[in-house]
């Protein structure tokens, strides 16, 4: 399945936006790990913004940057949200409350607990009624989202944005699922080349749990310890601007085979 890359958004530890991160993803500048800085999106009104957790902020920040770079209208674009963790802070709050003697949970916390909360806030923020889905495939959540988006584009011929995010869990969940950082990426994909398109991806589901590593050891650690960051080798290939093959593991027996071709 062939899709075209029109715009990317990125927020991660030491990764402050796609443009600012291109050189260090391509290996021409040194990567320095710093805590993830998420600027609260002004897409949502202040009252709504206060109610949202970090995953919503990650998804909105990455999504917004990708659409700005793609120069595409988010209000008419379908979306595939994908995350392994969901909102871990919220999960911890709900489980702690339910384990206490006072079980009343906050209604806002409850409706924010759904896995599709970022998708819901995104559609409100961008006024988009376009189809949207919210996926989880544990460590392969990004690969699942990319595969689904590629199929959707192949069948419907309409653009799709893949928005992936993960939040590091608080304790005690961190001990059983240690994610090293909070991370979000968005990629706007189209069926046809446009003025903004800068790469083509040929995506297929292939046997073998192949996974392309990152050259930089810290970036590779990030890739290995945050499911959403499993997209980093693809971002590195896109930043590098040369034809590259990237494999992203999909479960124990398969991977996504992605041929990245620069396009201009």
């Amino acid at each position, binding site marked *: 399945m062939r899709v075209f890359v029109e715009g990317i958004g990125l927020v991660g530890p030491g990764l402050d936006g796609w443009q600012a991160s291109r050189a260090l993803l391509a290996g021409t500048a040194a990567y320095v790990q710093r805590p993830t800085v998420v600027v609260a999106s002004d897409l949502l009104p202040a009252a709504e913004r206060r109610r949202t957790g970090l995953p919503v902020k990650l998804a909105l920040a990455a999504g917004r940057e990708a659409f700005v770079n793609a120069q595409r209208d988010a209000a008419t674009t379908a979306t595939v949200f994908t995350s392994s963790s969901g909102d871990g802070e919220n999960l911890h709050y709900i489980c702690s409350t339910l384990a206490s003697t006072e079980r009343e949970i906050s209604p806002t916390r409850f409706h924010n607990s759904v896995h599709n909360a970022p998708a819901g806030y995104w559609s409100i923020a961008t006024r988009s009624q376009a189809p949207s889905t919210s996926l*989880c495939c544990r460590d392969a959540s990004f690969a699942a989202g990319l595969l689904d988006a590629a199929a959707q584009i192949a069948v419907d011929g309409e653009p799709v944005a893949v928005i992936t995010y993960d939040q590091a869990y608080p304790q005690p969940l961190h001990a059983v699922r240690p994610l090293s950082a909070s991370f979000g990426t968005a990629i706007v994909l189209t069926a046809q080349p446009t003025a903004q398109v800068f790469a083509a991806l040929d995506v297929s589901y292939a046997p073998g749990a192949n996974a392309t590593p990152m050259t930089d050891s810290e970036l590779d650690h990030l890739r290995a310890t945050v499911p959403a960051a499993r997209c980093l080798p693809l971002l590195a290939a896109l930043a590098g601007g040369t034809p590259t093959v990237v494999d992203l593991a999909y479960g124990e027996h398969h991977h996504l085979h992605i041929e990245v071709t620069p396009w201009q």
Partner: protein
Amino acid sequence: MTMQPLAISRYSIVNCLGKDPSAVASALGARRSGLAPCDFETVTLDTWIGEVAGVDDVRVRPDLAAYDCRNNRLAQMGLEADGYAAAVTAAREKYGAARIGVFMGTSTSGMLQTELAYRRRDPVTGALPPDFRYAETQNSFSLADFVQSYLGLTGPAFVVSSACSSSAKVFGHAARLMAAGVCDAAVVGGVDSLCLTTLYGFQSLGLTSRAPCRPYAIDRDGISVGEGAGFALLERPDDASAPGAMLLLGVGESCDAYHMSSPHPEGAGAKLAMRQALASAGLTPAGIDYINLHGTATKANDASEDQAVFDLFGGATPVSSTKGSTGHLLGAAGITEAIISLLAIEQGMLPGGMHTLALDPALRCHYLTDNREGRVARVLTNSFGFGGSNCSLVLGGAG
């Protein structure tokens, strides 16, 4: 754009009405509700629920013991019911394990397991108990992972978790991945199980009824939370081995872009989803014989959905909600009501909604409060979720 119809060559269902499709069909035919006053776990809420009997006695297959939790026990009950797993095994022989996708809907996955683990945290360190299995129970993917492992499949798999539209949307994902040639067949479905998060959560929003839920009633005051599992096997019609297989004809998806937990008052997003489902089936509203509503029995849902359905279909098409019988299965509602729609086609019987004594005169659709016999060729079924996630399916008989 119209879609290529897909054959639904096998299906399975477990909920408070029964443990296989025929038991569920009998309960619907006899107008027997599965709802009962809530006595689940340590919950002290004044509400009714649709609990599946015997889940605690289920033993997860030994090689998958790590996945043991209420949600995966329900999944196993569904897979074992009515020869479903055997039909998938036959499909695996035919297509190959890597050519069958597994797309599952759930809203809370093994949440109950995590809630219980939080009660057993180490008093000194706060650590979760050592027997807590995050990946196999808490993570949303747990369900698809369990189902895929249980059935010995290796094709693309993921969980769709878009609240109460989850297991309707899986049909759309399967249709697209099959049309794109990524897989030749798909196991779709959904499982959600009772847990404290949803019971106390819906209570916190004032959305649980203190009596059995009463969709479309003048005195409706909220939902009854249920649980269950449902699975369908999708194949291309030319490949399907089962004659008389039912068909997935259309899928429509949209977002409300309005509010996180309230539907758009005029049902704008719902209307969009229904319109797209009809368009993808190549049908006009006149082609639909019965609509299985989302019909949760909250004030807001039924009013909004009624407006959307009335605007598109007018007041003649018979509609009902079966949530008075099953409760609201949340992430499993879509697959459950898709299969109830198939049963309506198969049996030539439209299931009337239960517990609704006096219809709300403000609602204008032709709501059935009693069963009605008659030929049903095509059904539209709605599933709407928090976050404004809408999905409508069109299902039909092969004949």
